[in-house]
């Protein structure tokens, strides 16, 4: 599995962005180069239409504004096709108005590069990555089987990653000049 400090892989995937009937409105190609300048929170789940996943996904959705305030774009994903995502969102009340895209890693290419394909099941593990605007992974969080993630914890970590003591007021005597970019 890729770890902190490594570059998030490049990818180009179809994503489901709405429950519109028109495929041109419902689907969009998303690549690693989109959302330039933003932090990214990628989180993967094993399979659509299962039980734990929707509670996690809605957990992230509830915090979407908080992530946006921190210049972060949430991107969910699984190895299901964009049509399966579409069907799931259409028929599951809590997922209808999801404010972020669901990536379809149908060739399992991205998950393979990330190293999160479950060796037994062949689907994505419950993995979350925080990626900074330079494309570097800064946080990896994976849970087994049916244990859901805590989106609040992901937000807490993002916040901590973004919190730098930039004020020279905290200089201790004898420290070198603070370089402010």
């Amino acid at each position, binding site marked *: 599995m890729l770890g902190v400090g490594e570059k998030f892989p490049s990818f180009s995937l179809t994503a489901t962005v709405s429950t519109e009937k028109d495929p041109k409105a419902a689907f969009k190609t998303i690549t690693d180069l989109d959302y330039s300048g933003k932090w990214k929170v990628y989180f993967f789940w094993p399979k659509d239409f299962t039980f734990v996943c929707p509670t996690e996904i809605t957990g992230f959705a509830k915090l979407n504004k908080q992530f946006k305030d921190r210049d972060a774009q949430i991107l969910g994903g699984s190895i299901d096709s964009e049509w399966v995502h579409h069907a799931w969102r259409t028929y599951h009340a809590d997922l209808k108005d999801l404010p972020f895209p669901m990536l379809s890693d149908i060739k399992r290419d991205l998950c393979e590069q990330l190293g999160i394909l479950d060796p037994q099941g062949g689907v994505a593990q419950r993995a979350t990555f925080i990626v900074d605007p330079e494309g570097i992974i800064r946080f990896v969080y994976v849970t087994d089987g049916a244990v859901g993630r805590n989106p609040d914890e992901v937000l807490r970590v993002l916040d901590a990653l973004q919190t730098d003591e930039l004020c*020279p007021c905290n200089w201790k005597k004898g420290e070198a000049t603070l370089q402010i970019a």
Partner: protein
Amino acid sequence: MTLEELMETVPAYARDLKLNFSTLTQQPELTSQQIWGTIVASAVASRSRDLTQAVVAEAAGHLSPQALEAAKGAAAIMGMNNVYYRFQHLTSNQNYRNMPARLRMNIIRSHGIDAADFELWCAAVSAINGCSACVDSHEKVVREKGLSEDAVLAAMRLASVVHALAVVFDAERVGAAQAVSA
């Protein structure tokens, strides 16, 4: 009310401040952006609603929208840092200096205008808010970024007078309110 109109309401006992202010806006040691950013940041930090409204309206004619935002941002973030680091400076317990602040202050990096000017405004606000650690460190940074001592002092004059004017306008507002209810 425009800033000019507001200044006309300065009472006789504060005539010095009114005259100081009009002179200080012309100081050659500072650029127009530095002058007006200092005035905005100082007004915000001094908390007179009347003065802040008039100053911000006037400054919009001298500052780019980004610089105006940055000046308010300097007052905002120093409103936080001046208390936090003043605590660290005031307490004799040095352990706090080694503990993480866990306070976001990204605007110090992301304000988007000249770093020296932003730091100058932070220094001015720190002088108003009375954090000696902040005044000391921001003064150093400002001079490392190329501003002269003359420029720093010019900004401090402005900060002092703007603060005093805020005091006066708030005093007069209270007086006016009492007169109305009497």
